[in-house]
């Protein structure tokens, strides 16, 4: 039974608040010291973990099917991380959006159905049979559609921009994923390989980014193939924050961060699990009691030793009476 000196107010509401934001439930119950402990410790450990993992340690993936030959991913660790509440919950929405995108691209679809409209700033390189390989920047506009016969994905649009030395350029773009003339990074993903095709493939190193989205498409003049533009377009924050990662991105992160990524996972797991204790405390009160009860014999002896060493002879029960 909860100690009558502790006013839990509405325990259900307090537990919900404590789950959504560590410390908020206790602040609602006016238990400010505990609120400070829970918020500083849980959120401190959680965000430190996020920082160690370069904001990619928390993501939720629950694939029902393997994707493109990759293994089926289920991030059981997220079930611990979600204990932190609001800071980790967007990962669920991102997984749902990612799954919806996968479903839209891989289910039976009507040819010509618009999957996405793109109007974004492009930066990259032009591989052109006449113009060579200049760096280009400009605006991409177009639509991603379902290809013919209800499978594959195609892009049709335009590029308007300029080369690095200021010459204006404009192209018609047309590519299909199946033919290899369209490489479009996932709309919703945490990290993506954005490497351009190097002329000497042996020296190519993979480059990953969450903020940029791979965009390679064929440049055409009527039906003649003139080359490709290769580069990236921005991926908005809401499309990569806490979004799922694929196998390749996870391998990249583990290779780049090494132990730090493992530490990031452990920190965020433990932060979520610790908040479960806080939620229960908000709902039911402290597990052992108020704290001024007679200590266990072994605890009593060590407490006495500690009291002597700190020259603190004030009885615990007396303090409790004073504070209440």
């Amino acid at each position: 039974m909860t100690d009558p000196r502790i006013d839990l107010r509405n325990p259900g509401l307090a537990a919900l608040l404590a789950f959504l934001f560590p410390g908020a439930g206790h602040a609602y119950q006016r238990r400010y010291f505990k609120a400070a402990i829970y918020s500083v410790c849980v959120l401190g450990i959680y965000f430190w973990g996020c920082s160690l993992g370069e904001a990619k340690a928390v993501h939720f993936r629950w694939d029902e099917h393997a994707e493109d030959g990759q293994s089926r991913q289920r991030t059981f660790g997220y079930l611990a991380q979600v204990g932190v509440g609001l800071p980790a919950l967007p990962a669920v929405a991102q997984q749902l959006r990612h799954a919806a995108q996968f479903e839209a691209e891989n289910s039976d679809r009507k040819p010509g159905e618009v999957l996405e409209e793109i109007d974004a700033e492009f930066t990259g390189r032009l591989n052109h049979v006449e113009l060579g390989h200049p760096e280009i920047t400009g605006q991409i506009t177009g639509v991603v559609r379902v290809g013919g016969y209800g499978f594959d994905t195609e892009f049709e649009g335009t590029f308007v921009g300029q080369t690095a030395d200021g010459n204006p350029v404009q192209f018609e773009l047309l590519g299909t994923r199946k033919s290899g003339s369209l490489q479009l990074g996932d709309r919703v993903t945490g990290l993506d390989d954005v490497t351009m095709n190097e002329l000497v493939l042996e020296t190519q190193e993979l480059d990953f980014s969450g903020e940029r989205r791979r965009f390679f498409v064929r440049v055409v003049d009527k039906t003649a193939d003139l080359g490709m533009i290769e580069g990236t377009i921005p991926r908005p924050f809401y499309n990569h924050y806490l979004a799922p990662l694929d196998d390749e991105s996870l391998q990249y992160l583990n290779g780049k961060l090494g132990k730090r990524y493992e530490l990031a996972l452990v920190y965020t797991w433990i932060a979520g699990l610790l908040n479960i204790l806080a939620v229960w405390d908000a709902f039911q009160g402290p597990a052992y009691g108020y704290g001024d009860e007679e200590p266990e014999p072994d605890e009593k002896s060590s407490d006495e030793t500690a009291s002597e060493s700190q020259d603190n002879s004030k009885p615990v029960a007396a303090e409790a009476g004073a504070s209440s």
Partner: protein
Amino acid sequence: MTTSFLLLAVGHNTTWYVLPLAGAISLVYSASRYELTERILRRAARLFLTITGFMLAVFVMLWLLSANL
């Protein structure tokens, strides 16, 4: 030279990451057991010392076992 190398090794050793983690675990666990501030802090300090002491003992044991390897 050796001292600076050791200091560098100590500074980059990921084992140190356990200390803030142990501190947070001790505080949160103790706070979920009791209500009284002083009791929470005292229990948290004890738990922190227990965790770090246990890990130190394991570390020393492993270090001794691997001394002649």
